[in-house]
């Protein structure tokens, strides 16, 4: 769980005597330290999208090409709405 119950406690890491101030932990997102895993998940999502949409496009266009429609056939499909 990454529940935040107290923002002051969450953001305060320590007190640096050299700068005489409270140090702020800038990152506020959950599961700090797991960035690489999220990046890898993003890469997988992107590659999967590329693969599956490419396969779908090829299949769809292959089917359409086999029907040998003429250059003006699309005019029969113009809708009125």
């Amino acid at each position, binding site marked *: 769980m990454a529940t935040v119950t107290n923002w002051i406690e969450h953001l305060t890491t320590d007190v640096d005597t050299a700068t005489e101030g409270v140090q702020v932990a800038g990152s506020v997102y959950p599961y700090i330290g797991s*960035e690489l895993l999220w990046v890898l998940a993003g890469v997988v999502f*992107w590659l999967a999208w590329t693969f599956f949409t490419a396969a779908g496009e090829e299949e769809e266009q292959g089917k359409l*090409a086999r*029907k040998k429609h003429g250059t003006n056939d699309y005019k029969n499909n*113009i*809708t009125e709405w």
Partner: protein
Amino acid sequence: MTDQLGALTTIFTEFYYWITVVLMFLIHVGFCMYEVGASRYKHHQHTLMKNTMLIPLVTVTWYLFGWWLYWALPTGPGIAPSIMTESTGLVLGGGFGANELANPTNALMAVNLNDHIMGVFWAAFLLFAWTAASIVSGAVIERITTFAFGILAIAIGSVFWTIDASWGWHFDGWMLKILGYHDAYASGVIHAVCGGFALGILAVLGPRIGKFSPSGEPRNIGPRNPWLVCIGLFLIYTGFWGFYAACNIPIFDLGPEYGMEGVTFFTATNIYVTPTTLSGITMNFLLSLSGGLLAGYWISKGDPFWTYSGGLAGIIAASAGNDLYHPMQSLIIAGVGTAIAYKLHYWVERKFKIDDAVGAVAVHGYAGVVGLIICGFVLWGYPSSGYGVGSMWVGTDYAPINPLGMFIGAIIMFGVLGFLPGWILAKILHAAGKLRIPRDVELAGLDYNIMEQARKDERAVASSNR
């Protein structure tokens, strides 16, 4: 942020870049409208989707590696020494020889209360990247596969324009130091490289069916919806306000950066940290738009498509030096660039049978190249970088702006990082049978299945009585 003035400066800068991102979004809206308006009815929906999907594709890859490349390659690598050393205080972190901050696993590449700039700066550059890919998109409509375009969009949006920006835009870029390259609002860094990339693809992709007669005479396939094209181009003009602003640093104290002890001089600067003003570049932007519109109207004999495109070509031609030009110089340079781009478009079309559906190679590529070359003469002798004039630079000086350096820079942008990668990638995709849609699909129309289904739905609804 511990004091009010520092906080105000930081938050102002954050908001400034955020506004530029919102404005630049309109460039993409404009490109979508423009492309759909230029395409034929039976290809409309696929044309729209092709351009729309470059948004997520370039965004994801820009996050993963595009932004990192920008910070990784300014020195070549190995072509020129870096000023990002301990002595200049510009070291931004390691990370594979680059800026660790741009590593996608770094804590600053997310919401971070200690940083207000990374995200908006990343986004401003991302919007440049979308523009880069969108420029290419229009040239190849009605016959490229969405898969191939996706690969090519990522290549130009997250790799090749990024490299040229790193070389010719980054304050540590080797082209500034060795060539004296200057390109304040991206005549070459975005426009010439994308025009060249598009031309490389078109040389392999081939023309749309029917574009050329059996004897090789080009036929005009004009825009099917000129009003949509016009509104699209107006939106692109509007987005370019954001584009120009995003190329500036909004508030900067030149005194200490230029080694002037005790001097405080706040100004805006261009991306090279040389001074300009948002006010001045606003005049230049409008005069270069005007020069392009006037020249486009004149040379095309009042053709709306080329008049509007001329406005864009004018801005692009003058952009390299619009941080410093006099407004009347912007006007004339824009007019000259537009006229040359128009003439070259038809000469290349006829000579090499290149079917550039929206004139993207001319408007962005040729106008960009012409703008770079002219800039080398008009700004001859000006410093190419703010870091060349002061204490920040402790090694060899940056070369001043000069005609030869700008000419070589134009070749690098259009040819080396534009045409060549586009041609090679298109060749690879063509060899794999993935570049062009089947001939029968092109004849039937990319939207045939969607339209057929819509017609069936319409009939079903029209015939129902309950």
